């Protein structure tokens, strides 16, 4: 049993520590207790994650989960400010956890050095009260969205395009979701690495995101639910747009299976594909770079795939790729409808393959 005097001592330490924020009438001691009781999962430990995580931890959020399968790269350092030069090559989540533990050792930190996938999303999300979407790719955003709907968790969204950022809160008390805003998931949108980004932009947008997390937990102010905030750093302008729940969109277990789990089973990595497949099918248009020199390579652009499908053999194992892994999924559907069965789409396409090669070269240099 806890010694009463020791308990009082703990309370006093905490009161002193958090006194600047508990002095706010919106927070107080009850608010601080709410922060301590809160469990927040941050998906992505990149630019947004690096802005969100330290403020959640220092502010006294009791339990923080962080999930990301990426390792620190040198080109991350200008915006992912939790990481040091020595951290290059290490898992981001481990570095991030060590840093936030230094700033608040009372925080319980759960670290997942993997990516959120259709397989693990529901189980991981179930353990948290609130999810922060700090990712940099659209497919995982739809995954977070749908998993949060199934598990009835609100999620705080932010995303950046060059000097602009979007922030919103989805699935808050049954409110609109990301699908009510952008319903078409088969889009190809540039992420930070492709489009370019400045650290201060992603930092400020991440801060707005962390601020919404605090507001939701504390019940303070007006939560950005049903509203999309767009901030433009170049002219400091801020725009708010309202949107409503689209009642035609039904997200249930069957929907999750169809949209995510079946796709998960349809996808494979480049390396596995190259080693196991009889045919590697490139569905990019002829002009797209880089051209790959691989054995068993067949080039049939998506735009002409349906009419050229007869050139492929239905008995072959076919692994399909494009630039980013979106068109290859469409190609898979086309071929499936034509009676092909042994098909997989290469996740992330040529972009992911090149990133992998680049990382390996770096590791060889280090060791």
């Amino acid at each position, binding site marked *: 049993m806890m010694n009463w005097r020791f308990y009082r001592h703990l309370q006093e330490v905490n009161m002193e520590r958090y006194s600047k924020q508990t002095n706010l009438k919106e927070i107080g001691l009850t608010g601080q207790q709410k922060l301590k009781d809160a469990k927040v999962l941050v998906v*992505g430990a*990149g*630019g*947004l*994650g690096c802005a969100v995580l330290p403020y959640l931890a220092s502010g006294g959020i009791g339990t923080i989960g962080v999930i990301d399968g990426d390792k620190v790269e040198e080109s991350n350092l200008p915006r992912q400010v939790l990481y040091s030069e020595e951290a290059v090559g290490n898992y981001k989540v481990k570095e991030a956890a060590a840093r936030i533990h230094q700033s608040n050792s009372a925080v319980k930190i759960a670290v997942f050095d993997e990516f959120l996938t259709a397989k693990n999303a529901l189980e991981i999300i179930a353990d948290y009260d609130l999810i922060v*979407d*700090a*990712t*940099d*790719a*659209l497919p995982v*955003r739809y995954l977070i969205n749908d998993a949060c709907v199934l598990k009835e968790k609100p999620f705080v969204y*932010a*995303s*950046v*395009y*060059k000097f*602009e*950022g*979007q922030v919103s809160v989805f699935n808050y008390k049954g409110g609109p979701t990301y699908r009510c*805003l*952008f*319903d*078409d998931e088969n*889009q190809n*949108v*540039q*992420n*930070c690495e492709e*489009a370019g*980004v400045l650290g201060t932009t*992603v930092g400020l947008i991440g801060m707005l995101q962390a601020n919404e997390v605090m507001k939701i937990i504390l019940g303070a102010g007006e939560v950005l639910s049903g509203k*999309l905030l*767009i901030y*433009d750093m170049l*002219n400091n302008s801020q*725009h*708010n*747009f*309202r*949107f*409503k729940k*689209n009642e035609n969109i039904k997200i249930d277990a069957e929907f999750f299976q169809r949209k995510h789990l079946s796709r998960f089973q349809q996808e494979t990595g480049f390396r596995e594909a190259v080693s196991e497949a009889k045919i590697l099918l490139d569905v990019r248009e002829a002009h797209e770079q880089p051209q790959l020199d691989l054995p068993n390579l067949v080039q049939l652009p998506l735009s002409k795939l349906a009419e050229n499908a007869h050139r492929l053999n239905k008995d072959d194992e076919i692994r399909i790729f494009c630039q980013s892994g979106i068109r290859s999924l469409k190609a898979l559907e086309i071929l499936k409808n034509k009676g092909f069965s042994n098909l997989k789409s290469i996740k992330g396409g040529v972009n992911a393959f090149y990133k992998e090669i680049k990382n390996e070269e770096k590791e060889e240099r280090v060791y």
Partner: protein
Amino acid sequence: MISIKYFGAVAEATKRPSENLELKSSSLEDVLKELHLKYNLKNIPVKLALNQEIINSTEGVQVKKNDELAVLPPFAGG
């Protein structure tokens, strides 16, 4: 005349953050067609907001003088 705001990749395609447009038709679909023709926005998925309210369909939507249109693409960076 209506005002139009562009964001993200759309603002890059239009090479401006905003502009005023003389209304030739009060149909939002016609306005959108005009923008597609002028800037070739077809490859960018967008949502439209009319007077700060995001709309799911342009079908039958009318615009009037001084309305504010916004063209919003999804962002993916982080």
